[in-house]
């Protein structure tokens, strides 16, 4: 392994002081970090680390919760756009973030790897989810009226050509069509495996793009894919006149928006933490979040600004 440096005596000597300096710096920095944590003690309002996954709606939701907390004296650290659920959910469990917005049925199915646990009944799905979360020291707060599920869309042209209105119409022609969606779709129960089991749909090919983002839209418009996975609250569907195929066999379940929080933070924080978050969640309807998605996704406004205006308009922040 170290034969490369075998003849060179100089290199290790040159590196040594540098290593020592780095070590010293690490000790100093580490020490100061600990000091700060100990000094702040059991603060009345803890710092909240808000996370989000990698699509626009998540950035907006994180801003909504973050700004309402900030307006009420909480210090908020934003850790947004971290990646997909496969990255963010473990980050929450391991305590690298404290809270992030989730979707009841998809999250429950992700955690249990069992599609039968979730249902179209939001209240029942919510209760089961909490049972699964308790041993993980996590708590799901109130769920919103807003539902955002995976939506499979085609262009008007494709819908006309193959006479598509429902997902079950797709089964007969899917062999000629290419589906585009996030790279994790082939593993997700509500994506490729679900389409196969529930509808008997097998596509000609799958193209890995992004989570309901600009790549997927561009690929659909550019005819590189024929069917796209977008989120049902995405305003681009209406704006581009895409046809959202009706989920007539109920593959998608109660995917109401609900923030998930580390129980430790909930115990530590004053009671207003829960009230503030739930206050925001109660106002998020499917129409409201679709409108917010439109402002950021299509009108290219800053999620921060959009969230602030909405909180103001709803009287959640004065």
């Amino acid at each position, binding site marked *: 392994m170290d034969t490369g440096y075998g003849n060179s005596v100089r290199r290790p000597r040159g590196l040594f002081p540098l290593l020592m300096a780095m070590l010293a710096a690490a000790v100093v920095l580490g020490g100061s970090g600990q000091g700060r944590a100990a000094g702040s003690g059991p603060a009345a309002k803890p710092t909240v680390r808000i996370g989000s996954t990698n699509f626009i709606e998540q950035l907006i939701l994180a801003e909504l919760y973050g700004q309402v907390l900030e307006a009420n004296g909480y210090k908020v650290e934003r850790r947004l756009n971290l*990646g*997909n659920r*496969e*990255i963010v959910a473990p980050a929450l469990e391991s305590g690298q973030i404290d809270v992030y917005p989730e979707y009841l049925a998809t999250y429950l199915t992700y955690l249990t790897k069992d599609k039968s646990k979730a249902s179209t009944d939001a209240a029942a799905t919510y209760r089961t989810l909490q049972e699964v979360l308790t041993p993980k020291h996590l708590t799901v707060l109130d769920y919103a009226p807003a539902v955002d599920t995976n939506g499979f869309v085609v262009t008007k042209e494709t819908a006309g050509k193959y006479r598509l209105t429902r997902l079950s119409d797709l089964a007969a022609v899917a062999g000629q069509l290419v589906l585009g969606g*996030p*790279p*994790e779709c*082939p*593993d997700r129960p509500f994506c490729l495996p679900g389409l196969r089991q529930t509808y008997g749909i097998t596509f000609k*090919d*799958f*193209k*890995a*793009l*992004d989570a309901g983002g600009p*790549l997927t839209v*561009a*690929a659909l418009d*550019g005819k*590189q894919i024929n069917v796209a996975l977008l989120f049902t609250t995405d305003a681009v569907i209406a704006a581009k006149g895409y046809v959202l195929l009706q989920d007539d066999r109920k593959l998608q379940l109660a995917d109401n928006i609900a923030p998930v929080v580390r129980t430790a933070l909930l115990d530590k924080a004053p009671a207003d933490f829960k009230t503030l978050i739930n206050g925001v969640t109660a106002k998020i309807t499917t129409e409201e979040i679709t409108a917010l998605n439109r402002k950021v996704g299509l009108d290219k406004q800053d999620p921060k600004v959009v969230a602030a205006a909405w909180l103001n308009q709803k009287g959640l922040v004065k």
Partner: protein
Amino acid sequence: MGRGAGAERDADVSAVLATVAWLADPAHWRGTDGIVTRLAEHLALSGTALTIAALLALPAGMWLGHAGRGALVVINVLNVGRALPSLAILAFALPVAFRLGLGLGFWPTVLMLVPLGVPLILINCYVAIRSVDREVVDVAWGMGMRGWEVFQEVELPLAAPIILGGARNAAVTIVATATLGALVASGGLGRYIVDGLARQETGRLVAGAVLVALLSIATEAAFDILERLAVPPAVRAARHADEIRLPGVAARRELGPLSAYVDEGDRGPALVERRRQKRESGG
């Protein structure tokens, strides 16, 4: 703490096993997401980018090297360009490709890779031509060769090893960086890395990384063979005598690879003379 270290070692072992298992599955070699397809896509991406980069950089580098003027400005501008991260260039290339109607995937990735290759090829090419021994060039001028003849008959063959060295560096860098294309829906071996991360599939992810590493090594080897075929025998002998392999080494030396050439019995002018005779007898 001890338990943590043990668990880490288990994770390492399971990562290796997962990678081997993933590679051993014949299903992962076939189809549109199979290794054969992804390898072909990777080669097409890299090959296109390298060709475009060479077409841009070689004439410019040769002219700068031959004329010796304006090189300072061009090389400094290119060096600033090299500081731009490829990821940023890719993010910039995507909307540009959309606007030009080039779509997703292939062309945005090529647009990112070309600026990566151009400076490496151009700077090496310039240095290669400049580092041809001035005594040899003077002899050529003295024999009455014209500018184009001096370039074609003397400078270019003698500079060939370093020019190819630049192309080799560019090719290896392009092959390695083409993996980023998967972020803009391009094919290629980077697909396995991006998808493996998204799906939390260690086997797929590490297999992708291993395949890209192997392809980089293969690229390096291919250029070795190419150099052996393309470099004139006399130059090869000179290179062998001087043991200069890396273009960077030559670039730092003022004399370049031909320092040994003239020292060892004046074969340089002899080569020029031989070529002149050949040309005259031919024409």
